[in-house]
């Protein structure tokens, strides 16, 4: 895939996560990525996708989410585009990791995981689309 881009389109349904996982496993193999690297990218993408699918739409229609991935000298670029309501995950409130179990709120946890795992994340609102671009230096097998 060196230099090339690959794209996947997913329906706005959580049942698509299995397909995401299979696609990423294949990609990981073709790029010689470690199991851990594939896991971390899979996880960051799921956290973004599940937020979009669960909270991003105000109607019940089926929407499509497009993911484009390309390798740039061992830095993986992942772009996620959706036509949901404007949402910048970088501005999501961070969970209070220090508070007690009883007070612990789960909201924002997925965004926190994604931000912790990726090296760089850029959010843009372009027309009616959210465009999130994440970068991650990949570890070899």
């Amino acid at each position, binding site marked *: 895939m060196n230099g090339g881009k690959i794209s996947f389109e997913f329906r706005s349904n959580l049942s698509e*996560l299995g397909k995401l996982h299979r696609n990423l496993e294949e990609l990981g193999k073709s790029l010689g990525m470690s199991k851990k690297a594939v896991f971390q990218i899979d996880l960051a993408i799921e956290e973004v996708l*599940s937020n979009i699918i669960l909270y991003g739409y105000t109607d019940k229609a089926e929407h499509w989410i497009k993911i484009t991935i390309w390798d740039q000298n061992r830095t993986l670029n992942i772009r996620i585009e959706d036509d949901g309501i404007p949402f910048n995950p970088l501005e999501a409130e961070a*969970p209070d990791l220090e508070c007690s179990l009883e007070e612990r709120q789960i909201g924002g*946890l997925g965004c*926190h995981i994604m931000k912790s795992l990726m090296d760089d994340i850029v959010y843009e609102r372009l027309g009616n689309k959210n465009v999130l671009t994440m970068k991650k230096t990949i570890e070899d097998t």
Partner: protein
Amino acid sequence: MEIIEKRQNDISIFKVNGRLDSNTSPRFEEKIVEAIKNGSNKMIIDFEALDYISSAGLRVINKTTKQLKHIEGMLILCSMQDYIKEVFVITGFDSFLPIVSTCDEALMKF
């Protein structure tokens, strides 16, 4: 995802095989809720065969910990792969959850 449930004395042990993501975690939660309804308050979740966990899986674990605490029970996690453990560290879940290396070690905690 596949869940194998067994009981050893009064301890419920769940071995989770595969992936705990936003799509599969509700099924995992159902199993646990059912076990609590049937009187379980001591639980071990064995993650030896777990390949993947997301915040949806963590949410179930968090809820379970809270529920068990209310009924004077306890949840112990064991046998995680390193990259799975890292998610527990990133989210601070390792600070309130007992995580041990083996299922035998977990059994000795009760």
